[in-house]
């Protein structure tokens, strides 16, 4: 039997990583299954629904005419006694409680919580219907036009964030955790006992991520497109660039986090310490503009914020390569600093 040509160590090391991943059902799920499930769950929870019906509670004594007028105006009316009405108001089951006049000639009373936007809306709706039924005339002619811009829905905001989050976790777990596992198993030491070059191993880690990233991106994008009609407004090249820069940056952070950890509990604790605050602050699920103004510069400097914002700039605002430069700069800074420190502190044994 003739031996095939000796393969390059980088090829063999990359194959090792890819094989280990493909043969590990858990790893496959977290890389590919989980982000899809998450986007389905959040997409459904925040899908654009038809207008919510207005629900009001009516105390005994509200006239049949008033109830009919409300019902024909699309308002759901629930007859309630006083105690039940209070409870329903508190729990938000009804937005407004209608209290009939105690004596003829006295006014109707609307009970509602003005701090709730939907309660104010319900009060205005109920009032308009009752006033009209009582004979009020509209003086101004108006017409409604219903609008739903693609790109303005929650799912359009969410998908770029999910993409960024997924690439971050992929790099952190796929490199940080794997390095520490190899250290615990003494595999790192064993590889070093052979004439393996250290840079070949690091190279292979990067390369194996590089081979998986296109599939991760494509899966989420195709899925979001087919199921939710999410579009990429800007250039795909810019999207790929942000993805690669972000992944590389987080790969470097992963090397730093894993540089000294002697067991997998330590490294997973450290990685959560790095990632969890960013899940909250960087605006993966909700816009980070809700945080106070003073925190804004700090939040924008986080690598996940840069990746999320870069993704959104491309997918929603249609940015091209030039538009992503500020985000790329932030990612590059994190990547370079982490890589240099990570290599300096790295323990092979």
């Amino acid at each position, binding site marked *: *039997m003739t*031996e095939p040509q*000796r*393969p*390059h*160590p980088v*090829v*063999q*090391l990359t*194959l*090792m990583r890819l*094989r*280990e991943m493909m*043969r*590990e059902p858990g790893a496959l799920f977290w890389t590919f299954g989980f982000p899809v499930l998450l986007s389905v769950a959040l997409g459904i929870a925040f899908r654009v629904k038809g207008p919510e019906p207005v629900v009001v509670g009516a105390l005994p004594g509200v006239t049949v005419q008033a109830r009919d007028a409300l019902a024909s105006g699309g308002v759901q009316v629930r007859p309630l006694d006083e105690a039940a009405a209070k409870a329903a108001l508190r729990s938000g089951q009804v937005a407004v409680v209608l209290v009939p006049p105690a004596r003829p000639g006295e006014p109707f009373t609307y009970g509602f919580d003005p701090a709730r936007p939907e309660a104010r809306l319900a009060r205005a709706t109920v009032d308009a219907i009752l006033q009209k039924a009582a004979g009020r005339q509209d003086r101004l002619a108006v017409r409604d036009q219903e609008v739903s811009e693609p790109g303005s829905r929650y799912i359009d905001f969410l998908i770029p964030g999910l993409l960024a989050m997924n690439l971050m976790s992929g790099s952190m777990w796929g490199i940080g955790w794997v390095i520490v596992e190899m250290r615990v*198993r*003494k*595999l790192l*030491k*064993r*590889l*070093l*006992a*052979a*004439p*393996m070059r250290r840079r070949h191993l690091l190279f292979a880690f990067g390369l194996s991520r590089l081979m998986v990233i296109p599939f991760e991106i494509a899966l989420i994008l195709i899925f979001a497109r087919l199921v939710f009609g999410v579009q990429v407004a800007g250039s795909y090249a810019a999207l790929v660039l942000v993805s690669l820069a972000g992944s590389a940056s987080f790969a470097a952070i992963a090397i730093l986090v894993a540089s000294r950890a*002697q067991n997998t509990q330590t490294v997973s604790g450290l990685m959560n310490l790095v990632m969890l605050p960013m899940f909250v602050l960087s605006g993966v699920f909700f816009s980070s503009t809700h945080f106070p103004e003073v925190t804004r510069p700090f939040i924008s400097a986080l690598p996940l914020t840069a990746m999320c914002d870069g993704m959104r700039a491309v997918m929603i605002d249609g940015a091209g390569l030039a538009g992503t430069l500020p985000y790329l700069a932030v990612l590059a800074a994190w990547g370079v600093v982490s890589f240099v420190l990570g290599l300096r502190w790295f323990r092979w*044994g």
Partner: protein
Amino acid sequence: MNTICPDAEPALLCRGLRKIYEAGRGSGRKRAGAVLAVEGLDLTIARGECFGLLGPNGSGKTTTVEMLEGLLAPTGGEVKLLGMDWAHDESRLRERMGVALQETRLPEKLTVEEVLNLFRSFYQRPRPLQALLADVQLEEKRRAWVVKLSGGQRQRLAIACALVAEPEILFLDEPTTGLDPQSRRQIWGLVAAYRARGGTVLLTTHYMEEAQRLCDRVAILDRGRLIRLGTPAELIAGLGAEHVVELELEAGMGALDEATLRSLPTVTEVHLSGEGVWALAAVEPERAVPALRALLQERGQHLLRLGTRKATLEDVFVSLTGRALRDD
């Protein structure tokens, strides 16, 4: 038996090798727990020799071997391997040596041949896959995942990884610990075959039988120090007696004392183990045993067990340190 050439340049040489582990690994405490693991070790291993490092748990075998392998920085001392040193010739040395660490867990979901091909890719001149598989008798398992291999098969794979490029020197750290007797014999066979091809071996073990069978010379380590060095036969001869009489009294039969036992004819060493078994090193057991029986009869003490065997390196260790070699 292959030839050992003591005059030629040695395969391995170390002088004054020392290792102190600084405290604070993992914990934040300061210095308090620094460990002196190896204390000034001098070794010379000839080409073609099989050299054994023997010692109980924690005696510094792994620390020593990893310093020799260039995987752990010594605190002091010098190492010359195949005439080169680690500071200047690391990449050349790595090409020419093979290593099986104590307990490496190879990638579990790779197959045997994938693992071997991975290691083959690191060397300039790897041996053919087929030959490697044949050497370690894993041809049938070539497509099996590492995680599906038995302990013995895994250990053979680890040794195959060390033999990938036909090294000039092979380091084996406890190659047979925890294996069944059959797997152990298979690994002894591998080592013998490698030596027959002219290789030099440094192995560590706490199995005396293994050292006696495989090693031309052994060094006994205890608490980081070399306490004896020589061929197995020399070390046993150093006991002053080639036989060991072991005896155990029935429960409730009173006690024996060391002085009495030592006064038996031809007995040179007496040792009581934790389990209440006396071991007497005797030059002529055929004289010592009748005297022992007479003594016990006189005292009305009954034996639970009495046996005679040839002295082993284990006895050498016990006589040197007063402790058993294995605490497992």
